[in-house]
């Protein structure tokens, strides 16, 4: 999760609404389409795996533990004889559910905090920023370890931890354009009309920073997957017998010498999904920035 911190320092984005032509720009970006195709594939797998998987991903098979890839088992079997191909497909579900939910929630709370800090400035801003600094002054994985060992590992708690960690990052990113928007005439006009602060923040300013939010959401999705699988790898996220990719890699590590396929395929799935999301997110970002 150490790369996560990179974007934690806050990418400063232009505070403008999407320009016409962004969509046109995306349409011709090959990396965008590659990213969308990969992501789309895994979303389909997450929903349709019960139809696609040749075996029950939880079914034990005494007769063929650690069988190498073959026509019978495309990706081989794991230590308990379970079909790795089916498990990799089924593993898309936890990946596709935890990270997006965590991303959506972090964007919601982060945007609210960013609006508050950027709109009120002064003490509100200073206080929020100090709290955020404190949260971000450890490696994220350390904070996650602390919270999860306190609360116990569960899907809900993993989402909670990601929201706790990503809220400050999102807030910092949103705060900058909000500050700029606040000085524009339409905000002053709204205030003269006697609109409430909440109305101005959410009905006036928010629509003008949606581009920043959209980019942030796309970028966060990749990092949320990174974070969730890392926690699973450390044993703090998904628990047995979940086909979660991070957990599968951690568990496959022990017999990686005799059965590399048990680690290889979940790792490849995880890598392609994250790279796919990142490619798409990066293309969107560039489309909006340029």
């Amino acid at each position: 999760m150490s790369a996560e911190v990179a974007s934690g320092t806050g990418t400063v984005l232009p505070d403008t609404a999407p320009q016409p032509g962004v969509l046109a720009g995306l349409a011709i970006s090959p990396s965008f389409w590659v990213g969308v195709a990969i992501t789309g594939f895994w979303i389909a797998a997450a929903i349709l795996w019960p139809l696609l998987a040749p075996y029950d991903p939880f079914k034990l098979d005494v007769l063929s533990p650690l069988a190498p890839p073959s026509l019978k088992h495309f990706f081989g079997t794991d230590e308990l004889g379970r079909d790795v191909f089916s498990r990799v497909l089924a593993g898309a579900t936890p990946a596709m559910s935890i990270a997006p939910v965590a991303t959506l929630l972090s964007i919601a709370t982060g945007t609210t905090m960013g609006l508050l800090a950027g709109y009120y400035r002064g003490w509100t801003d200073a206080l929020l920023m100090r709290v955020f600094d404190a949260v971000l002054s450890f490696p994220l994985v350390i904070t996650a370890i602390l919270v999860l060992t306190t609360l116990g590992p569960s899907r809900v708690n993993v989402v909670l931890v990601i929201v706790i960690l990503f809220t400050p990052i999102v807030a910092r990113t949103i705060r900058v354009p909000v500050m700029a928007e606040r000085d524009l005439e339409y905000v002053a006009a709204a205030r003269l009309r006697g609109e409430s602060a909440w109305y101005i923040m959410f009905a006036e300013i928010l629509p003008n920073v949606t581009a920043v939010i959209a980019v942030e959401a796309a970028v966060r999705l990749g990092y949320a997957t990174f974070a969730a699988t890392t926690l699973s790898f450390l044993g703090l996220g998904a628990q047995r017998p979940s086909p979660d990719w991070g957990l599968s890699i951690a568990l496959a590590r022990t017999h990686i010498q005799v059965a590399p396929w048990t680690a290889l395929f979940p790792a490849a799935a995880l890598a392609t999904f994250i790279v796919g999301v990142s490619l798409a997110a990066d293309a969107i970002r560039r489309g909006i920035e340029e």
Partner: protein
Amino acid sequence: MAKGNDFQNDALSAMRLQLQAGRLNRRDLLRAASVLGIALPLATSGMGLFSRAARAEGSVLRVAAQADDSELEPVSSPSVGAVCVAQQIAEYLVWCDADLIVRPMLATSWTPAGSAKEWDVNLREDVLFNDGSPLTSADVVATFDRIFDPQSNASALNSLKGLMSAGAVEATGTHSVRFHLDRPVVDFAYFISNVTYGSMILPKGYKMHTFAQSPVGTGPYLLKEYRPTQGATLVRNPKYWGQGEPKFDQIEFIYYKDVAPQSLALQSGEIDMMMETPFLDSQALLSDPSIKFVYNKSASYRAVHMRTDQAPFNDKRVRQAIASCLDRTAIVGLLFGGRADIGNDTGFAPIYPSSPALAPRKQDYELAKKLLADAGHGDGLTVELTAVTFQEVPQYATILREMAAPAGITINIREMAFDAYYGTGDPWLNLPFAITDWGPRATPSQLLSAAYTCNAQWTSSHWCNNDFDQLLASFDAEVDPLKRKDIAAKMAALQMDEVPSIIAYFLNQSRAMKASLMDVGPTTTNVLDVRKAHFA
């Protein structure tokens, strides 16, 4: 000991008769004789198998052990990593090998005085502690007093409690002591052997929690450095009493958190042996010609305990239902490639001579469903199973989950770190449904009294059955191997019916080492005897 006392002679002649009648085999006879302190000619033959290899100057043995953040404290530490280091520095009165035959170590003899309630133990007279002071009976008395001091939190209590009490050891001479037991126990010798791993003899002046700073013992090695959670360096004790022992000049213990890096380190030649090599995590080693495996059948097992004093497990039909969901042959196949003995939910492991032959409990979903329905869970039951992160236990939990599902039982697995599971609040003794790893015990009595009697120290199932306790007492006092078998059969039947814990298998202990490493002593527990070990 050519001539025994009356008690020994009576027991021996009874056993000889049964041997002739074909009801007892030779190995059982040897075992039974050795615990009574009767040295039969064959009993020592195991020692002759060792080669008389010369000591190589500067030779180092590197041993990988499981680290579990424990303190190096021979009296209280239950961790293999700490115990196997302490065992090189301090020693036991009696040594028990993998074949369950006991041999002299610091004690030269153990003789029942009249009945099996009083035992006379004589000590070697040529033994010095590594601080120069001689080993005397006072040290033995002090060692056992320390174990029974409530402040010590001694690990040995779990096998000695109920067998003897504080002040049970009396010095009868400079080199002789008498043990006054609470009740007659024929298998006494096992209880003062390495099987009770916390019973190593320490000097009378030893203060708890100072072992890492002042490691005084009579053993073949001296502690040079101890690095918590990382390892230990030991050097040869030049004044060790054993002739020509030990062979290695130095032992290097390296602690690992996981098995996988140990296997890799063994393959790449960074270590010479592993203390323990679980099957699931070490598949790569099986096909490596430079590595050999030493297997020992054992009474080591996993208890899936169910709290008999809490719903839903206070209804024995629920416990029986879960036990009826298991295909034990499949479990042993998946977890050990078949290298384990099938268990029938009783503590009478196949390795014990007294264990009755039992018809294995079959997988029977119809029965399981009926039992559940009778217990009022006809529409399904959801329970949380806690599995300690240790060797194959989490995989076992996964299998249990899948096998219980067809009967309408939903098992949610919660994995817990080793140190937390055995740490603050003792989750392992309090959780309603959990899997605990149990090290081997040399006698069924040790195994059962640790967890299945009413006042057992570690009764995680909170099961209490007075009939069972009485049977155990008479089992301990019974000399006749055939009568013991009868009592054992009754106890096993009780345990199978009540199912305080599911015991689906007993492990074969396996230890991977370099093929060139010879004569590492066979042991039944996770103990290490390298006095005669050397490279070919």
